[in-house]
């Protein structure tokens, strides 16, 4: 029954978007962390999505072959340069009085947050529709 697969597909997408939201929260929370757990300034992290095949492996002939969910394939670190802030009184300041601050772009993170939230909502609505259709299917012949 292919309608049941919608729950798997939407569920995987919700997990992935949830993880993305988690990474955004981590980035925003650490936007001013001059030192992270490894002693270096915190670096912004991004999730990389990848589609996963759930159904059979028969290619286009199989009815389930096109159903693909999402998973987070990796979490990468943003390689853009760190922000150098002039603050001689800071304990982490170098000889010239500059402090390396995280390369988190707060505006980008907010946009990412809204995008993740919208995608999550889309998937919830998709699940609701699938549920309605399945319940309606159960009433055939009544």
């Amino acid at each position, binding site marked *: 029954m*292919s309608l049941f*697969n919608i729950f798997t597909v939407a569920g995987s997408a919700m997990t992935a978007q949830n993880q993305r939201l988690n990474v955004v929260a981590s980035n925003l929370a650490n936007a001013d962390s001059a030192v992270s757990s490894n002693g270096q300034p915190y670096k912004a992290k991004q999730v990389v999505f990848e589609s996963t095949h759930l159904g059979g492996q028969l290619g286009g002939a199989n009815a389930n072959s096109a159903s693909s969910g999402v998973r987070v394939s990796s979490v990468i670190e943003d390689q853009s340069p760190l922000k150098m802030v002039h603050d001689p009184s800071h304990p982490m300041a170098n000889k010239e009085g500059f402090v390396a601050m995280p390369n988190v772009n707060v505006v980008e993170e907010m946009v990412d947050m809204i995008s993740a939230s919208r995608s999550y909502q889309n998937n919830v609505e998709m699940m609701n529709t*699938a549920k309605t*259709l399945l319940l309606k299917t159960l009433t055939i012949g009544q």
Partner: protein
Amino acid sequence: MIDKLDSTFRFYQDAANLRAHRQQLIASNIANADTPQYKARDIDFNTALQGALTGGGPAVTLATSASSHIAPAAGVSGGAPLLYRSAVQGSVDGNTVDMDVERSQFADNAIHYEANLTFISNQIRMMQSVLQG
């Protein structure tokens, strides 16, 4: 008599199966709206239904590796050919999912599926009233 009953319901059954399949395809598209390089896919419902009713569509045959293997009498119909949706506005990451298109198609397909179920129910009720007199 029984085969007539079967052929009465067959159209709606095939249509419902295809609608459920298409619903799942669009669900995959919406789920992968943020996946880089993902290409949105869909079936042409009209062609798919014609194929399902006439037994057309891409045939799936059994692979035979020895001459003594018995080839199947008729290939099993493999359903509808999967197509790629042409992107209205391309995106930088190679993703072709347009959320407006997918959402409207998802809702459209859901309504058609529900209508189909209503038709089946009516058909069953009609048959029951014929049988019970």
